[in-house]
């Protein structure tokens, strides 16, 4: 029904956007409002995603890292429209997702999938594995029963489950196997873009590598694009191509993986990287310890939100908010040390 109009819209906006960007996020904001308390003038608000812009290229794995509660999952869920953005746009292949009707969005779900963090919570306990994996097919395809079953068989073989598992219920599996079911469900419609919401953080270290390798193999086979959210930097280093670092709802640094891990610019990224454990007792490392806790998201600091924990901060940082600026090539950072070094020294 919408195909014609969607297509024209796509073609028009394709001209304006870079051809190989599958996702473009422009000034995205997702706010959560609390209940107004007695004698309070305004409703308390958590700016979980606060004015975030980036783009994801076809075929790459885009990582988002940050502490718990910094808004990385919210960002991902807003990108795939499981949450409604408060402001801003998400363009999927140049198509503005916020302009779509509920039906059009539902139709697009076959190209955009999600792998959840907790494989114990993301599978309907009342469905068998076959029903779970076949669910997306039942929604979108008119194949015959046997064709659907054939597809299900093919996909469970690809993720390393057995034929006999199809009749079982999710609770009969271990965490790693359940995550394979979740991956199979996300893959069955041949999607183009998958949002991975900490897909391995609930798993044992021993199965983590298996699942990550599986995801990498599948990506190579199917030319998938991943948006990969994690708080585990070694996982991100293993699987991602480009990485964004989030702090209190904002992106503070975006860079190619190698650039980020070798020459981090933002002091927060530096601190995160210094916290990666190195499996060698003889290596002496300079840990950068952050002072204080993550500030309350209800009441974030003024200026640069990181200034109260930053070892380089000056007065200027608590006044002005730094914008994401290009430092070299593909490396962007939101820090006054790069955007306004002279002001940092002079303003007091």
């Amino acid at each position: 029904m919408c195909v014609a109009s969607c297509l024209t819209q796509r073609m028009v906006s394709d001209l304006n956007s870079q051809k190989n960007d599958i996702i473009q996020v422009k000034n995205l904001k997702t706010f959560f409002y609390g209940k107004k308390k007695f004698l309070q003038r305004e409703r308390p608000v958590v700016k979980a995603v606060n004015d975030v812009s980036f783009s994801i290229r076809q075929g790459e794995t885009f990582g988002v890292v940050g502490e718990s509660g910094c808004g990385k999952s919210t960002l991902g869920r807003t990108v795939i429209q499981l949450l409604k953005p408060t402001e801003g746009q998400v363009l999927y292949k140049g198509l503005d997702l916020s302009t779509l009707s509920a039906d059009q969005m539902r139709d697009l779900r076959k190209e955009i999938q999600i792998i959840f963090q907790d494989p114990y919570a993301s599978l309907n306990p009342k469905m068998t594995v076959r029903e779970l994996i076949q669910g997306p097919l039942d929604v979108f395809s008119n194949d015959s029963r046997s064709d659907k079953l054939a597809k299900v068989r093919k996909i469970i073989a690809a993720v390393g489950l057995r034929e006999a598992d199809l009749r079982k219920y999710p609770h009969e599996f271990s965490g790693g196997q359940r995550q394979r079911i979740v991956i199979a469900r996300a893959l069955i419609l041949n999607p183009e873009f998958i949002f991975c919401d900490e897909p391995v953080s609930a798993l044992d270290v021993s199965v983590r590598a298996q699942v990550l390798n599986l995801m990498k193999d599948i990506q190579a086979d199917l030319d998938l694009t991943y948006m990969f959210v994690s708080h585990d930097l070694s996982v991100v280093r293993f699987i991602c191509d480009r990485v964004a670092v989030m702090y209190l709802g904002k992106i503070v640094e975006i860079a190619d993986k190698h650039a980020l891990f070798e020459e981090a610019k933002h002091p927060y990224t530096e601190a995160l990287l210094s916290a990666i454990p190195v499996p060698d007792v003889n290596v002496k490392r300079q840990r950068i310890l952050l002072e204080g806790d993550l500030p309350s998201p209800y009441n974030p600091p003024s200026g640069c939100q990181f200034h109260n924990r930053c070892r380089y901060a000056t007065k200027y940082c608590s006044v002005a908010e730094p914008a994401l600026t290009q430092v070299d090539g593909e490396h962007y950072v939101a820090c006054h040390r790069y955007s306004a070094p002279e002001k940092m020294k002079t303003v007091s």
Partner: protein
Amino acid sequence: MATAKQSSYLRDVLKRFFAHKLAMVGAIILIIEILAILFLPSIMNLDPYSIDYMSFGAPPSAAHILGTDDVGRDNFARLIYGGRVSLTVGILSAIVSLLIGVPLGLIAGFFRGKTEVVIMRVADIFMSFPSMILILVLASVLGQSITTVTLVIGFLGWTEFTRLTYASVLSIREKDYVQSAVAIGEKSKNIMVKYILPNSLAPVIISFTFRTAQAIITESSLSFLGLGVQPPDPSWGNILYYAQSISVLANQPYLWVPAGILLVLTVLSINFIGDGIRDALDTKMSI
């Protein structure tokens, strides 16, 4: 598709149900009762209305194994026919409550907002009525027939199902697997029916059995008070009505004790079955 899906799930549920001892005891008692109620009248040629002019209020004998009541009707026949009435009223009125209550609770919990406020506040209003008095009033206004008693008890019981369904829907709609249903493009109706409803049904089903038991008791209470099923139609409640007379209570236990025992047994069995169903529906229980 649908048949294969259900048969595998049903088989697992039945397996677990059969392994539940108390539920099986309850089911067996209830099945025997239902068989007796259905077939004994034609086998033994029972008639709850015919009057034996030779014996009024007679004690048990070969002709009347539980004696006769004060107008000479066979007490055993009335007990069996009364069971038909009591069980029918109990089950049908619980079904009426369920059919009204569960969809309302599901809708209120899923859509939230204004729908939720309207449905839940109406439920609150209904719950704050003294239901027995309301039933008494309605029964006397609408006329005292088996149908009215069933409908009135059923209609006034919906709030319990609404609140239960609503409460579990609220917790289940936030689960990741419901989000996953959104992510694979399921329609709202399917999300409610395939993802939320099956996972919120367990408390509703136990509540259904309790409601059935309660409805049987409510019908009996009404009939005991003389406002439910009216003689000459028999029901366990109006058989117990005899016990209002001190002399019957003391001297003719064969008139009311069997009805009382059957009532207790039935209610107990239904409650056991409810427990069994709840455990059987829980896929996490080992088979």
